């Protein structure tokens, strides 16, 4: 992966160029969440973002599907500049799936309906077809027989499986994961990580924010270390974990490993 520089622009499905973002909250000091961040992701690559809490990982991830706007810089998804006003973000978001720490399943809908709604509403799929797709995906993530359950009737791990399946129904080209195992008990964490690894093996382009260093080492093609809104270090898992260069990366790893 070291030969990234030699590749042409076309091969990068995600390109982030000098993106900055500052949060202004009334009555508080402005928070600089991103400082001129630049990065690229190849098709099929698994990029893992790590760093201490508050370092801007979520903000970076959320700019990739336009949930967060940027103050400066550009982001291209599949060669479309999503920071331009004219870009239809809803179309981009169909290509970029996102899984959240708190699942964000629709509380008033069953597991099945959580998967059929985006198909019928956004993709205009017929309800019969949507249901077949949904059932197949629910089975694939290991939730046979749970279709009729509401989110509140499912365990955290089960809810997260539904959430991943819900993103997959849109047939996205890219998947974003924001600390998707942080709200789960250890037993469930393992299952979700396995599910993500199998997705990675199937060639899905993934950007993963996580504190699971084992997963980062096993499944990541490339690691990015962030602190204070900046990318401080970047490299393959092997190089990064075995020989971190930046003092703050060294300190962070000494804390979490």
């Amino acid at each position, binding site marked *: 992966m070291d030969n990234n520089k030699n590749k042409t622009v076309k091969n990068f499905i995600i390109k982030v160029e000098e993106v900055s973002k500052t949060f202004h909250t009334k009555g508080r000091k402005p928070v600089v969440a991103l400082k001129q961040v630049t990065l690229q992701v190849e098709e099929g690559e698994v990029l893992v973002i790590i760093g201490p809490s508050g370092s801007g990982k979520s903000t970076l991830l959320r700019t990739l599907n336009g949930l967060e706007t940027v103050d400066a810089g550009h982001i291209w998804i599949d060669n479309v500049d999503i920071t331009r006003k004219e870009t239809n973000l809803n179309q981009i978001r169909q290509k970029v*799936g996102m899984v959240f720490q708190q699942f964000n399943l629709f509380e*008033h809908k069953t597991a099945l309906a959580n998967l059929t709604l985006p198909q019928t509403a956004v993709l205009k799929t017929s309800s019969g077809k949507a249901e077949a797709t949904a059932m197949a995906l629910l089975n694939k993530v290991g939730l046979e027989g749970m279709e009729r359950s509401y989110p509140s009737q499912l365990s955290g791990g089960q809810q997260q499986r539904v959430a991943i399946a819900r993103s997959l129904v849109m047939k996205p080209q890219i998947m974003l994961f924001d600390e998707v195992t942080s709200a789960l008990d250890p037993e469930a964490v393992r299952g979700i990580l396995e599910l993500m690894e199998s997705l990675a093996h199937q060639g899905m382009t993934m950007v993963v924010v996580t504190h699971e260093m084992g997963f980062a080492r096993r499944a990541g093609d490339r690691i990015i270390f962030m602190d204070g809104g900046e990318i401080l270090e970047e490299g393959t898992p092997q190089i990064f974990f075995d020989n971190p260069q930046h003092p703050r990366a060294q300190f962070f790893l000494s804390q979490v490993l």
Partner: protein
Amino acid sequence: MNFLLEFYNYRILAEYIPQFYEGLCTTLKISFVALFGSLAIGTVFACLRLAPNPILWRLAASYVQAIRSTPLLVQIYIIYFALPEIPLLDRRLNELEGGILALALNAGAYMSEIIRAGIQSVARGQVEGAMSLGMTYIQRMRHVVLPQALARVVPPLLGQTAILIKDSSLVSFIGVSELFSAGVTVMTERLIPTEAFVTVALGYLVIYLVLLWASNWAQRRLAGP
């Protein structure tokens, strides 16, 4: 039986059944029209309150504050006595129209607060979940936010409706003959305040109990899993 007659003379009261019935009908009619008006006003102002434009939401907030910090009776008087001719109507509002308008404007402010709270109670994550799937604003509202908000909003809206019906008794002050005025008629004509007002109270109590039952039912039905 004689003892009962002394306390509650239902024989005299029986003569006034038509008045009470008509009063009850008027009360229900006024409340019904005012309810729809207030729901419309409440929805519009709730949306304005949530609008990103500061002028719009300040306007809506001022309206709610003005209504909440003045008595309904004063609002009724201002709308009925002080409002000049209505341009399109070419006349002033009559007591029924004035009363209904005042009730709707008043309840609308409270309804808007309930509706706004309902919309805001839908967690931010629900909207982000919908956004991440590429749903448009309309789709998010229709499929995600409103269904969840509605479930939380119906019971308090029914409670506010009960208050609206009780408040409608105040339009008797500007001469609308509704349930309360029927009681006043009986008292002044036959000098039996007990029968007159215990009956009126029972009438309102029955309406209240029906709404209370409906609210509990809705709470159970809409609570979800």
